């Protein structure tokens, strides 16, 4: 028999905004020994390499750049008595809150009485989009581009094309400017810009042509990109460029969840949670973009704080049994499979003394929709487009009662 694994009160996996705010809040709630595991060498998550605003408004009513924001999150956590272990990769989740980790000194197992999975989300890479052509250097997601701007003296390209128009694509646009690169075009496969109104003007303001209804059919080049072929309304043409930034299409970093057999939402691809943020194994909680690709850092920070309070309640035995959960009933989004997901996916019999972390339902659509929906027994009128957050009030009593 091996010795019992190291046991801590709360184990937080992922030192981004959700994980760090949860860790800080758990300490403030008297959560005992709180340990954050971070696989990168530095804590802070994605904001570490977002060299632009706005960060920190919700948290500290200050306008900050990503790196300063990330540092502040780390300082607050450390100040609250949180232990952060970097370069520590979780390689497997086991029932009851035991996790396998790999660190520079080798593998071992740690147990958290409660464990938060704040695993984040990532963009869809070129391969998963089945974009044809060759595989030269200079094709990357926005996060990799941001990493070049924040951490490297190397420049991955000078004249890239930016694919996509979610909010993150505009981060790519700004990051290119930081790097001294001049994007030659921004491409949107659909008819409309995905991000909200004001951003639509950004490419024009920066002198970058924006092409709607345009997709990449092939990337060309051997060592480095030397051009792409695009198709627009059935017409193909070539664009000379030396890089392609493939932006957005966020998906939860869910490989650990899948390998552990924890129940996933087929729409969000993140874990199924109850209103306290608990997974089907009640030792595990989740917050941040692994639940809902993708929200702002501030949103994730707030969500981490709220779930942390439920974790503190769980440590005190104050949460209702997880197996009382019933699926959240959503009816009325009738246009095909317009509803991408709604979370929390399940509702437990409420514990009156513990406010739920999710007191509103968060929904996203795949297709534009307007009409009446019934959520947990309540009717609401919604009108929204894909990739926009919808929140509806949630009465904590399940419809069954």
């Amino acid at each position: 028999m091996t010795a019992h694994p190291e046991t801590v009160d709360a184990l937080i996996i992922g030192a981004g905004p959700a994980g760090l705010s949860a860790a800080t809040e758990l300490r403030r709630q008297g959560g005992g020994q709180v340990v954050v595991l971070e696989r990168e060498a530095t804590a802070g998550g994605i904001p570490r390499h977002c060299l632009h605003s706005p960060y920190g408004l919700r948290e500290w009513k200050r306008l900050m750049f990503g790196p300063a924001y990330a540092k502040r999150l780390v300082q607050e956590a450390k100040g609250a008595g949180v232990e952060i272990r970097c370069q520590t990769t979780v390689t497997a989740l086991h029932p009851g809150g035991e996790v396998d980790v790999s660190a520079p000194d080798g593998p071992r197992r740690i147990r958290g009485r409660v464990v938060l999975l704040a695993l984040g989300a990532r963009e869809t890479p070129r391969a998963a989009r089945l974009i044809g052509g060759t595989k030269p250097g200079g094709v990357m997601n926005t996060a990799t581009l941001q990493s070049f701007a924040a951490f490297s003296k190397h420049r991955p390209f000078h004249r890239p094309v930016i694919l996509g128009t979610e909010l993150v694509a505009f981060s790519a646009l700004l990051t290119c400017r930081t790097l001294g690169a001049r994007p030659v075009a921004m491409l949107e496969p659909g008819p409309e810009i995905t991000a909200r109104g004001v951003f639509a003007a950004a490419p024009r303001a920066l002198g970058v042509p924006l092409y709607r209804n345009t997709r990449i059919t092939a990337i060309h080049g051997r060592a480095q990109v030397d051009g792409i072929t695009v198709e627009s309304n059935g017409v193909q043409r070539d664009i000379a460029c030396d890089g392609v930034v493939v932006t957005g299409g966020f998906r939860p970093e869910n490989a650990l969840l899948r390998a552990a057999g924890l129940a996933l939402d087929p729409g969000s691809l993140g874990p199924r949670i109850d209103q306290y943020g608990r997974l089907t194994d009640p030792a595990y909680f989740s917050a941040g973009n692994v639940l809902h690709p993708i929200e702002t850092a501030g949103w994730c920070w707030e969500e981490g704080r709220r779930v942390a309070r439920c974790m503190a309640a769980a440590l005190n035995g104050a949460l209702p049994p997880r197996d009382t959960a019933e699926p959240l009933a959503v009816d009325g989004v009738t246009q095909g499979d317009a509803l991408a997901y709604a979370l929390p996916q399940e509702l437990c019999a409420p514990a009156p003394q513990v406010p739920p972390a999710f007191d509103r339902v968060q929904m996203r659509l795949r297709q534009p929709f307007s009409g009446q929906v019934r959520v947990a027994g309540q009717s609401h009128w919604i009108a929204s487009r894909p990739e926009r957050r919808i929140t509806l009030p949630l009465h904590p009593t399940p419809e069954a009662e």
Partner: protein
Amino acid sequence: MTQPVQTYDIAVIGAGVIGCAIARRLTLDGARVVVLEKAADILDGASKANSAILHTGFDAPEGSLELACVQEGYREYEALHAQFNLPLDRCGALVLAWSAEQEARLPALMEQARANAVSDVVPLTRTETLALEPNLNPDVRAAFRVPRESLIDPWSAPHAYLLQALLNGGTLKRNCAVSGGSFDGAIWTLDTTKGPLRARHVVNAAGLYGDRIDAALLGQTQFTIRPRKGQFVVFDKMAAGLARHILLPVPTATTKGIVVCRTVWGNLLVGPTAEEQDDRETAGLEAETLRMLHAKGAEILPALAQEEVTSIYAGLRPACEHKDYQIRAHAGRNMVTVGAIRSTGLSSALGTAAHVARLLQGQGHAPAPLSAPQVPRMAMLAEEGARDWQASGNDGMLCHCERVTWREVRAALDDPLAPKTLAGLKRRTRATMGRCQGFYCGQAVQDLLAESTDA
């Protein structure tokens, strides 16, 4: 004092899997070998993309040179892999019949396997097949099992072969293209982009350019390369649990067909296509074909329909107008051509090398085997082995998807065969080859490579 112009015993043109294996064999036989590679890295042509299978030769044409080389190569790989720390996953293959017509062909295919001395093939009923592969489409009608078909690492194996050559006195010249040459009856002088080079014997292992090298050195060629492109899609670790065996279709006259199989790294691949083209350099991917491969994979393993493709690639096989390998010793010219190793090169490389060594002996090259050659110990990248992230002192994980450590990447960059390109670093370490495709580690990996190549 000026050095006399050095004369090698053997110049091997091309550092694909065949060239690497030949360099090893001849070095171990005591020759002074130089390998000339036109690209910046080895394995940059046909050898960079294949289905990573070690074949038994059960379906090779009876009596062919290909069959002999594949089987000799299989035996030698089996004998040396543990010593080199190279993986060998003896998962076996199933040849699957999906129609009555295909089912009717299974006995003849099993007969051919037995004629090829692969006598351990086992016929399977539909029920037996589904018991072995519960995730298989239940429409399968029958199958047979080829127990010794195996999975290997298509890159660490040839790296190991060439590394052993280098450790025992061999030389590699990269960015060294051969444009012509002359033979004076005893010594070849090759014209290369790095200047003239002298060697007593020349081995043409130029893969996709084999016919052109023959033409440049001999003024003629007995085959014409017609590249055959193969596209592949790769799925993530979760999909690898869907299949235990290599899943093969009943072959057609032109191709072995589309295979579904795990990789030694714990992924699952579907491919290749077989598309003839003129271009010898570019293996272009096409979205429509990739979607077809995904759909084809999901026909065989229905659960694949829900899985996302994590990686895509394409390769070129050096096919020609002949069915068999084109390996020839050119009388009176001290030269051997190893041409048209079209799709079984990874399996046959060690056997092909032994065959070439025998042909060179016939041309008067006398072997003097090394008594105690050095053996390289390769980094284990396969799931079956002990990985570096499971050891202490690994400096932490750099690529989280494929669990590649900083120590592994630094070691690859500090190797006699250190990569000069990102593709080369990926082949040696797998960094950035997983589900995120470099989202997290891409910049760090490229910076490490840039520092190494700038130094």
